[in-house]
């Protein structure tokens, strides 16, 4: 092999290594910044947030066009429906809340409805602010979603997406 050929070979090898390292690094960054989800076993407990927080179990996911309140009932707009997620949680002393999104199988996610948007109060609280030792450790999270999405719901996920990791976010699944 001539000296010139060796130089060309060295340049080609260097170029290939640079491309491989850059490609691998970009793929890792992409995987790290793209949220992944993993379904929990039906009815299983999980900690939705990576940075600790509440241990939550999804007890049921009920779709309804009308919500009963202590005043007048709330009716969903035409073509939409309410989804009531009943959750059980382990209270924490610091009063950590449960801000969970409702996730559809196509990746769409809805944030919780503000209880002030309802005409009255519901029986269960819409937050997870109970203290350790309190009798009620249940809460219901209410969502308003398009009716056609109600048949393809995956469960509840963390509302925070800022955490960068290749680890999957747990998706709380209701019991079958």
């Amino acid at each position, binding site marked *: 092999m001539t000296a010139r050929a060796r130089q060309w070979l060295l340049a080609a090898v260097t170029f290939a290594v640079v491309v491989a390292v850059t490609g691998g690094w970009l793929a890792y960054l992409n995987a790290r910044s793209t949220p992944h989800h993993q379904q929990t076993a039906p009815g299983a407990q999980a900690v939705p947030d990576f940075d600790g927080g509440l241990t939550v179990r999804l007890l049921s996911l009920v779709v309804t066009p009308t919500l009963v309140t202590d005043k007048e009932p709330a009716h969903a*707009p*035409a*073509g*939409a429906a309410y989804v009531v997620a009943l959750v059980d949680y382990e209270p924490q002393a610091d009063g950590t809340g449960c801000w969970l*999104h409702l996730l*559809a199988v*196509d*990746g*769409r*996610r*809805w*944030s919780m409805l503000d209880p002030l948007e309802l005409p009255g109060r519901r029986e269960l609280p819409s937050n997870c602010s109970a203290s350790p030792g309190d009798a009620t450790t249940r809460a219901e999270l209410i969502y*308003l*979603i*398009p*009716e*056609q*999405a109600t048949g393809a719901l995956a469960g509840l996920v963390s509302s925070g*997406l*800022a955490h960068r990791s290749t680890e999957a976010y747990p998706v709380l699944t209701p019991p079958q």
Partner: protein
Amino acid sequence: MRGRATQWLLAVVACLAMIGLHAFTGEFPQESVRQVQLGQAARLYGSTITANSWTIGQVLYEDDRFVGRSGVMFLAVNVTVATDSPQELRSEWQVGGTANGHTLAARADLRPPQPGFTRTQDVVFELNPDDLAGFTLTVLDRAPIFAFDPQLNIDLGITAQHAADELERARYATVRAASGSIQVIR
């Protein structure tokens, strides 16, 4: 001589690459601005925004609630936002306006509706009548890090003559702004 020039060239290219990388990754605020016209739909992440119309007046009602009488005037821009994509939910956008080199803030933020819904609402500004001509509505989706955040500049198409005619007609009128209700995208 040639070797030394190559070294300097490499150093300059490396410096420019570092500056470009910092700009891209957010060390410097950057906006990626798109110009659209009144009535023209434009995308901002997973949503579509359309400015439909505008009205002016001196008295403002929001959802039938009296807000006040302005010492100058109110401008209400009717906007429709539809979220029809599964992209990450955005909590709010920075809404403002520019005219005659002035930057104006809207009375309230614009919140994109949740996936599958559309919302039509009014964005209200209080401004000097001289700033009506050439008014441009700006909607900026500011990310936690500044890296080419998308911004829409919506030209309301208000010419000097148009502004003069409208001020003559509706300068002291009542603006009835709506915070809007959501509807399902069919």
